[in-house]
């Protein structure tokens, strides 16, 4: 199961590499052991309570722009 949610890091405990993320206002305890140098404000993909990858915000917005343009042109 690959369910992974894009969410924003709001709290980091350096020592334990844990913290919390915010997804649409809901806060979830998350483990950051699988990523290095996580900081508050980073965007990550969270799967089963673990952040498994960073989410590149610029890339995401760019893809959204492409999609929006497609829809507007049609």
């Amino acid at each position, binding site marked *: *199961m*690959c*369910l992974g949610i894009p969410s924003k890091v709001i709290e980091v405990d350096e020592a334990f590499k844990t913290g919390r993320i915010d997804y649409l206002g809901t806060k979830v305890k998350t483990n950051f052991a*699988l990523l290095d140098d996580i900081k508050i404000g980073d*965007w990550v993909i969270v799967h089963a*309570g673990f952040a498994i*990858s960073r989410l*590149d915000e610029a890339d995401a917005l760019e893809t959204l722009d492409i999609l929006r343009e497609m*829809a507007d042109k049609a």
Partner: protein
Amino acid sequence: MGRASNGFRDKKVIAVLLDKIADKQDLLPARSRIMEVCGTHTMSIHRHGLKGLLEAAGVDMVSGPGCPVCITPNEFHEAALRLVTERENLVLATFGDMTRVPTRLGSLQAAVPARGSAVKIIYSPEESLALARQRRDAEVVFFGVGFETTIPSIAFTARTAEAEGLVNYSVLSALWVIPPPLKAILDSGEVRISGFLYPGHVSAIIGPAAYEFVARDYGFPGVIAGFEPGDILLGILALQDQIREGKPRVANEYTRVVRPDGNPVARALMAEVLEPKDACWRGLGVIPASGLKLRTKYSAFDAEVKHGLRIEPRASDLPGCRCGDVLRGLIGPPECPLFGRKCAPDSPYGPCMVSFEGACLVHHKYGARRP
């Protein structure tokens, strides 16, 4: 960026993408038959009603073997069942849909635990560690199942338990690696597909290079895609281009999440804690180096070793069950004679009807309808 999801689900965007897909199909000699490897792709396609829409546009989606609950042999569940029904003060922690798999001994969900024992459904592997720390009086067994998206977090629990000396904790692991079954399916020569939709989050861990062999050695196109409707449709458009150009490769349409080298930290953790093993996949049989097991250093936290479990998958003992053919993409769920009759969501016979992402359950639940 909470609005990000909405952009990838926008009705107008979806309609435009589907038109483009239909247009591209007109330039191809035949309908496109695409295998979505990952169960979460299967679920997303059905949940948003995309299967019927894609069929209308000339693209048939075929489910692949990427459903961990579907391919985990019953012998694992039976071992877990015996633990929780025969041992006192044992908490078996596992993910939700593992508890519904029917076996000769019943399902975990329907089990009556021994005194002081329980089945606990968890969302994160971390919760199983917390359980063991809280309940020193109990033996905690984490029945951890998954592909590379989940495997690093399962490895993390074993490593943490070892570091903390959490003596009342162990992992019953059923860990599956994605590239080998793809190779097995391609080697069998039975496959009738035009290309692969690769799992976005497994790829975030293993990186695009893991699939190079599919393009290079077998000549099949493939695209890594995310899970929003927009992601899936953009992925299919990219696949159609590869099919038309006749230039198979591994394209990454999920660049916002999947890096060129995946997640090296996660892979290092996996390598530290786990080692490859030959594994028996339900429906596909034994595939070399397709599974992972805990290294000897972690034997004390390996439930099979600690609790003396012997898990030896037999050939499938479900007469008439065609899950294997479904998992290999040879038939669709409705083509199984048991589908909707002997095997239905209320009374699942085979594993594809049990898992939330099983092709058969998804097909039955979301019943593709032409709009």
